[in-house]
């Protein structure tokens, strides 16, 4: 069954990246920063260095293992912030309408008009570099799509009979938003969040490259990729393995999101 395959592959890949994220330091057999040895610089993958070594002779396998922590934290953290901001604003704007809706719409348009990376740069410049400020910067700049979608969903759902029935039964606005509207907007929001996670991991790479993300010796998949840029023709393994890690993580998250959406929707479950 296709539905279960999505969930199994996606869940497996995501679990794998989470496992690496949590246990990476134990899996790596060398220290990602301290074990630099210029004698071993840019060695191709071998029995000793599974993924090869980089310009400073550091073991890429170890760096990928350690990097998982940073990349996943940024990806998940920033998407949590994004989704929280986007759905809160979107659902309330769609449900309440009026001046609040106008205000949220204006804000969303503003966010869409400013290139999010530039905005994130500005926030990073204020907060200073570091993992937490990276999460906040990426979390504050990418909620407009979530907001747009959840607003449209709320707008469509609030005129449904069951929302009116809830009002007739005496439900308050908050209860209606939580029990009637939010569960019915979850499908697309989960998909956007998992897609966005990949985007955040890549944006972290961009910010790290500009020197505003994770500081150079710390390994993150993004910063490893940008370091490997110069050697892509001479030593492709420098970019191949961190790239592969990002690719598999994002693929896993997307499949998982897809599968989750199907499972969470009772209508796609088979009859009895």
């Amino acid at each position, binding site marked *: 069954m296709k539905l279960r395959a999505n969930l199994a592959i996606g869940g497996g890949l995501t679990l794998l990246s989470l496992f690496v994220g949590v246990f990476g330091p134990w899996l790596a057999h060398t220290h990602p920063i301290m074990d630099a040895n210029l004698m071993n610089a840019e060695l191709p993958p071998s029995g000793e260095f599974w993924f090869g070594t980089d310009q400073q002779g550091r073991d890429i396998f170890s760096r990928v293992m350690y990097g998982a922590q940073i990349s996943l934290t940024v990806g998940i953290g920033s998407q949590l912030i994004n989704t929280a901001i986007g759905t809160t604003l979107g659902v309330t704007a769609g449900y309440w309408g009026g001046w609040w809706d106008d205000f949220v719409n204006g804000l969303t348009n503003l966010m869409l008009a400013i290139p999010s990376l530039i905005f994130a740069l500005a926030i990073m410049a204020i907060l200073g570099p570091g993992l937490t400020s990276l999460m906040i910067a990426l979390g504050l700049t990418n909620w407009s799509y979530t907001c747009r979608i959840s607003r449209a969903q709320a707008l469509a759902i609030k005129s*449904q*009979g*069951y929302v*009116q*029935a809830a*009002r*007739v*039964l*005496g*439900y308050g606005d908050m*209860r209606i938003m939580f*029990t*009637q509207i939010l*569960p*019915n907007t979850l499908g697309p929001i989960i998909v956007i969040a998992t897609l966005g996670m990949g985007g955040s991991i890549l944006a972290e790479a961009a910010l790290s490259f500009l020197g505003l993300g994770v500081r150079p010796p710390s390994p993150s998949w993004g910063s490893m990729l940008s370091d490997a840029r110069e050697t892509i023709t001479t030593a492709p393994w420098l970019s191949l393995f961190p790239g592969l890690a990002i690719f598999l993580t994002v693929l896993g998250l997307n499949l998982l999101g897809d599968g989750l959406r199907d499972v969470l*929707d*009772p*209508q796609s*479950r088979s*009859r*009895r």
Partner: protein
Amino acid sequence: MADSNLLSIEDLAVHFPIGGGMFSKPQMLRAVDGVNLSIKPGESLGLVGESGCGKSTLALSILGLVDPTRGRVMLDGKAVGSEADRLEVARTVQMVFQDPYASLNPRQTVRRTLAAPLRLHGVSNEGEVADRVAEMLRQVGLRPDQADLYPHEFSGGQRQRIGIARALILKPKLVICDEPVSALDVSIRAQIINLLLELQAEMGLSYLMISHDLGVVEHMSDRVAVMYLGRIVETGGWREIFEQPRHPYTRALIAAIPDPLTRGLAREKARGEIPSPLNPPPGCTFNPRCPHATDHCRSAPPVLSPVDEGHLVSCWRAEEFAKEPA
């Protein structure tokens, strides 16, 4: 005077401001404009009118979801409105919706749909909640073991039964049925109508049966009120309304019921479309469509006045239509 009515609506008007920018005054949409109605305990009132006549707005103001511009709605001796206790209003009046597909939350099982209102209204004993849900399902003709299914696993008729169960789970006294069968297959309509009648007898309910279909109203109502452009134009017992309709609009509606004997040869037709409630015609609001309109009708609005015991008509020429069969 002691009010024996369960619901009494006194001179209710609901106006909505439409449009109006920074420099222009909004226009007033008179959705409901001076309606008097009452329903006694155990009684069914049929409310008939074409779409856009204010039926739904009237229902919303009875439910306390729209505030009246003028007049008041008294439910079980208490005024309904934004100051009223919403939970108390909810326990007195409930609603059955038209579309059984859109009126059930697709992500909630039947049990959740029925149990959540009970909990909200203070039934905290889980055993009692489960018992009442099972009992309610049995009363509407579903099996209690179907409680853990989702709405999409039911047919349209079964979904409407769930909608009825949701309306009755709080044991209300008055149930507003907004076109309860018009979205259903003809073959299922009779079942749902009979179910509503059985439940009325069993639970002592009052109904406000909103419909554009006089055929449904005929089966279900003790009294009938005909609404046109925000006003009641004729009201009376169903026998008077169906056998001796006085208002030309009522006569046109009755003539429009498909009847195998007359082969749909309607003798009186209302011409044209319902006028905009933003700009109602002067005099009797029905005059542009009325085949009997006189100059008097075009200048002075008629008042709802009795022609018989309990039969009120708002038409200048009601006396002339007295003994004529429709």
